[in-house]
Each structure stands twice: as structure tokens, then as C-alpha cells.
């Protein structure tokens, strides 16, 4: 290894200090505020029916959003990277739209689409289906904001990897299904996991869109992020930070998992090529 030059050290030190102040201190504050009166706060929170209802809704909405967006992401990633068709760039932009729109505006769009006063919403309401200001609306909003992540990562990796392995698999007589599961998925496995992690983080933490469609009915349409805001605005600071700390720990887990996935992504070049080549011959 070469000798470290002084400007290198200075740059590293500056970067470390910036990250520590900008990201480290706020994170440390959450834990400090949550734990200031001991860990008993968690036991108290977990006996609170409103807290439990919020936790349940958050988990259910996130699971549904991740499942839907993963399935859709596989489909969209496949379509975008393997077929050429008219309007493809427009379709790709449409998938990424939720990234550049304010969640509040996305939520408003849902409200205007399926709210009781909208034509579609009114019709659904007449048939006993309520979306806005009810739990299905929370799920819809969560799906919308977390929509692009899996599709993006999956499409990008398939694009970059090319099509040769799939072609050889198909030429050797494998069915399309075999090719997808034994060749395409192994190639894209880590990118797919990365996309799912991003999607999960976004789903669990969504606030802006969810708060528009929720109507803030405690115990029914309140997710954990909404509950944190409500507790904080109600001056129940410790409970707010304790709830926040649970989500922060989840975020730390996601960031840590992503760093493991990154390690695999860097190695995937040799690895996945080999695996896919084996897959192609096995599938055949």
C-alpha cells in the first residue's frame, strides 16, 4: 500500500466530521431522548393499544406494498430491459415519477381519485368500498410512493448484464420459465434484494402521502410515522422519540443490510456470470 499523503487524511477527516455532525448527531439524539428515562418506556408503549394498532397497520401496509411492488418490479424490469417497443422511455419515466413528486401531492392525487367526492370514489363508496380515510387508502399511498425502487434496480442490472446467458439457456432448450428462475433471477439477485430493501425502508417510513389519505383516525388509520408526529405535537416527547427509535433501528438495519448487499454486488461480476452460465446449462 502506498504511503498516505497529507491531503488524503484531511479529506477523510472532513468527510467523517461532516457525516458525524449531519447524520450521526440527529440519530444519537433520537436514542438519547428515547432512553433518557430508561428502557421501561418500550414495555409501556407495547401495552398501549393505539401504539400496537399503529405498529400492526405499518407492518401490514409495508408488507403489502413490498409484495406488490416486488412483483410489479420484476415484471416492469423484465419488460423494460428485454423488449423494445414504442413509448418505452415514457413508460420508464412514468415508473420513476413518484421519486420526483412530493408525497403530499401523491396523496392528494389518491384523494382526488378515490375520495368520496370523486366519480370513481363515489362509485366504490356506493358499493361499500371505502379507500380514502380508511386502511386501503394507506396501503394505496404506501404502494405509490415505494413504487419505483425494485423496478429500477432490476431493470438497471438486466440492462447492464446483457442477454447472452438467457439466449444460450433458451437455445439449449430451456423454457421461458426455467430461464427466468434459473438464469435471470440469479444474475439480478443482489440488485433485486437491494431494490426490496429500498422499497421496504420507504414503505415503513412513508409519512406525507399517508397523512393526506389517512384522516388521522387513531387506532384505525394511524401508522407509526403518523403516530410519532401526533405524539410529538401533543408534547409526549419521550413516547414520540421511543416510537421514533424503533423505526430508526429498523433504518439502521436496512442501511447495514444494504452495505452487505453492496459487497455482493461488487463481487457479482465474476460470480453471477459463472452462476448464470451454470444455470443456463442446468436449465437446459
Amino acid at each position: 500500500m502506498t504511503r498516505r499523503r497529507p491531503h488524503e487524511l484531511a479529506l477523510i477527516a472532513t468527510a467523517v466530521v461532516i457525516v458525524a455532525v449531519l447524520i450521526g448527531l440527529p440519530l444519537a439524539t433520537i436514542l438519547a431522548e428515547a432512553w433518557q428515562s430508561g428502557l421501561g418506556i418500550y414495555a409501556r408503549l407495547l401495552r398501549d393499544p393505539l401504539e400496537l394498532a399503529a405498529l400492526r397497520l405499518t407492518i401490514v401496509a409495508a408488507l403489502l406494498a413490498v409484495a406488490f411492488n416486488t412483483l410489479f418490479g420484476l415484471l416492469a424490469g423484465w419488460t423494460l430491459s428485454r423488449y423494445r417497443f414504442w413509448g418505452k422511455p415514457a413508460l420508464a419515466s412514468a415508473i420513476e415519477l413518484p421519486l420526483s413528486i412530493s408525497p403530499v401531492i401523491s396523496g392528494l392525487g389518491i384523494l382526488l381519485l378515490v375520495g368520496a367526492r370523486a366519480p370513481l370514489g363515489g362509485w366504490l363508496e356506493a358499493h361499500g368500498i371505502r379507500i380514502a380515510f380508511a386502511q386501503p387508502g394507506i396501503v394505496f399511498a404506501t404502494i405509490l410512493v415505494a413504487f419505483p425502487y425494485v423496478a429500477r434496480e432490476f431493470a438497471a442490472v438486466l440492462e447492464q448484464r446483457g442477454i447472452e446467458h438467457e439466449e444460450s439457456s433458451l437455445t439449449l432448450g430451456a423454457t421461458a420459465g426455467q430461464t427466468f428462475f434459473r438464469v435471470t433471477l440469479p444474475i439480478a439477485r443482489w440488485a433485486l434484494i437491494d431494490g426490496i430493501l429500498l422499497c421496504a425502508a420507504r414503505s415503513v417510513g412513508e409519512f406525507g402521502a399517508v397523512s393526506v389519505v389517512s384522516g388521522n383516525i387513531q387506532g384505525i388509520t394511524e401508522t407509526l410515522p403518523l403516530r410519532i408526529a401526533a405524539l410529538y405535537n401533543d408534547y409526549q416527547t419521550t413516547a414520540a422519540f421511543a416510537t421514533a427509535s424503533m423505526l430508526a433501528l429498523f433504518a439502521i438495519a436496512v442501511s447495514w443490510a444494504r452495505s452487505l448487499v453492496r459487497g455482493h454486488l461488487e463481487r457479482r461480476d465474476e460470480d453471477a456470470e459463472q452462476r448464470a452460465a451454470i444455470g443456463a446449462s442446468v436449465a437446459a
Partner: protein
Amino acid sequence: MTLFGVTIVVLLPIAAIVGGLRGIDPATFAQTILSPRVLAAYRLTFGASLIAAIVDAVIGFLIAWVTVRYQFFGRAFLNACIDLPFAIPTPVSGIALATVYANSGWIGSITSRFGIHIAFTQLGVAVALVFIGIPFVVRTLQPAIEALPPELEEASSVLGGSGLDTFVRVLVPVLIPAWLAGFAMAFARGLGEYGSVIFIAGNKPGVTEIVPLVIMTKLEEYDFTGATALAVTMLAASFVLLLAINVLRRHMVSRQVAV
């Protein structure tokens, strides 16, 4: 099938917003979007997002460079920390930032001694947006820096270029498309950001109130037409801005090819 999914989940809600315009007469529309309170919110939202994206571009470059090019103890940890502003739910970041930068907080208590108040000021809005935007710049630049052969800088310094020369004449021209893309993503995220800003901003109408909050307030007052008018203007404005940045980026890429 793909098209069907996108239409249901993304395009229909957006169409509903634009369709919501039909019910609004032009005079009411103009009155809503040109009211002093709304104009102040626009100024704050665009101004703070722009400043924050510029700050993110600078420190994001530094962080991306250091994490890609240098081996040091804790590099992987530092790199993992960059995901946190994205992974932490926005209201969690919001209450944390409001606490840290309040005059009694860890950072706020130091800056307030020098007369710099961050929480509940426009500066606080910018600080929250710097926090939320940083992963976009870093994660967009990192692959571009990885793809850059170190020989490029070596050649520049062997040929007598100073560190600054190498940076301005060699690195910036090659990295500018990725850099601009990251800047645009941070900027776009800032324009729409809600959860991490509202707690630190103080939300004083006309002073520290951002556009997404004005939309929210109008919704709480059941003023759907007002909220729709604001949302449409905001969509149009961010669309034009991002398009401009994209065109600029394409222009720079094509110029590079020409050189």
C-alpha cells in the same frame, strides 16, 4: 401488464390532480397561486431546495470521493451511514433535527451563542433539506468515480497539473453528468419534502411555511380546489426545472463526446 400497473398506481392519481383543475375558474386559480402567503412559500421551497442541493453537491462529492478512492478504517461504516437519511422515516428525522438544532439542542446551543438560530427559521428548512438530500448525490457519484481510472489523475499530476488543476480540468468534466444527476435528484427531493421539514421549520405563514405544508393546510380546511391549484403549479414548476437540468446534462455529455 406493466403499463396497466403504472396506470393504476401512478398515472391515475396524477391525472386526477390535473383533472381536478376543470372545476376551478381561472380567476380563483390565479388568486390562489398568487396570494402573498403562497408566493412566500414558493420562494422558500425553491430557494431552500436550491441552496441545500448545492451544499449537498459539494459535501456529497467529498464523501463519494473519499469512500471510493481511499482505504481507511471505518470506510464501510461511513458508507453505510450515507443511507440513513433515506432509510429513516421523515418524521423521525424531523423531530430529531428539530431537537438537535433547537437553541437547547446539541448543535443549536453552540450556534445560538454566535447568534445563529437554526430551528424555526428558514435556515432550519435548508438544513433539513441538506440532510435529506445527501444520499442522492453520494450514491449517484460513487459509481461514476469508481468507473474513473486513477491513471487519469496520475497522468494529470505527472504532466505538472496541481491538485486544483486536476480537479477542475480532469475530474469535473468527466463527472459532471453524474454530479448534475445527483444534484437534480436532491433538488427534486427537497422541493417535495414534507416530513423532515415541518418540525424544524416552525411553519410561520409567509416566513417558514413550505409549499407541501400549504397544500396540507388547505386540505385540512377542506379547500380541495386550492390544494389542487397549488399541486398543479408545483408539478409544472418541478417538471420544467428538472427538464432544464436534464437538457443541460445531455448537452454536457454530447459536448464531451465532441471533445
